[in-house]
């Protein structure tokens, strides 16, 4: 859709709607894999981000969804038909017809004390946006 976004001289920007499933098995110490939740890991901050290029900006990254997973929480993620938590606004009108939006799952390891690494998952998905705006009101 193309809607008012109040953030600049241009009055309207593209607003994208993405529905997604996430299935992930955070390493949990079973099957001989060491657990990512070792003695010094307090939590994982997981986030799904969309990365794409437009005429206006060479690189755009938007976080669509995030979750805090504490040590002890169920390490298996099985989310279906999720809607994005945050508005997927572009800085301009670069989503329409954009063939290559790459979705990646990443996480920030928060220790009890020490370094704060940012890790990007190895899997990623590319989705294209349609060439026309949606005219019906649905979300």
């Amino acid at each position: 859709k193309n809607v008012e976004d109040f953030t600049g001289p241009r009055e309207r920007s593209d607003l994208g709607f993405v529905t997604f499933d996430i299935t992930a098995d955070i390493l949990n110490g079973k099957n001989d894999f060491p657990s990512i939740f070792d003695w010094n890991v307090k939590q994982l901050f997981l986030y799904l981000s969309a990365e794409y290029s437009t005429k206006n900006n060479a690189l755009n990254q938007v976080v669509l969804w995030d979750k805090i997973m504490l040590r002890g929480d169920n390490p298996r993620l099985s989310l279906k038909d999720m809607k994005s938590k945050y508005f997927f606004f572009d800085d301009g009108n670069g989503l329409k017809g954009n063939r290559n939006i790459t979705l990646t799952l990443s996480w920030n390891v928060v220790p009890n004390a020490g370094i704060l690494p940012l890790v990007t998952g190895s899997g990623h998905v590319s989705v294209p946006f349609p060439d026309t705006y949606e005219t019906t009101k649905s979300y």
Partner: protein
Amino acid sequence: AAAAAMLSLDFLDDVRRMNKRQLYYQVLNFGMIVSSALMIWKGLMVVTGSESPIVVVLSGSMEPAFHRGDLLFLTNRIEDPIRVGEIVVFRIEGREIPIVHRVLKIHEKQNGDIKFLTKGDNNAVDDRGLYKRGQHWLEKKDVVGRARGFVPYIGIVTILMNDYPKFKYAVLFLLGLFVLVHRE
């Protein structure tokens, strides 16, 4: 009262026993300790590229990752691009207190100009409401540094000294006393 009086007399005797030279020596010693500390701090600023390489978390907006009193270690190297998911410490124009939040959105141009939006993990909405009136994005110039590591609890001392000035004066007074009177 008698015991206290004796204690203060002993202490004064110690000071009187030091002649002028020893007193100057102690003062120079003290000066050296302060200079070394300042040099280490400046060195940290150079290595990390940040004007404030170590900051104390002041609010609960990044819980449960960081709590009030946690100490954060920052770097601010220009070569490190700002990307979503990173924890940045930034200052809003005209405000003194830096804020520690996570990058939610970035739009970067070919030439490297970048504008980005932040949000505290523990906040329901993004930070746009916190920015200056009419400001919708943060830029590189607003960034004090990126959080690379942290240590919990230790910064509480700084917060206590800020909130209770008497505590700060007591700590400084005791430190100064210790250094001046210490024989070695």
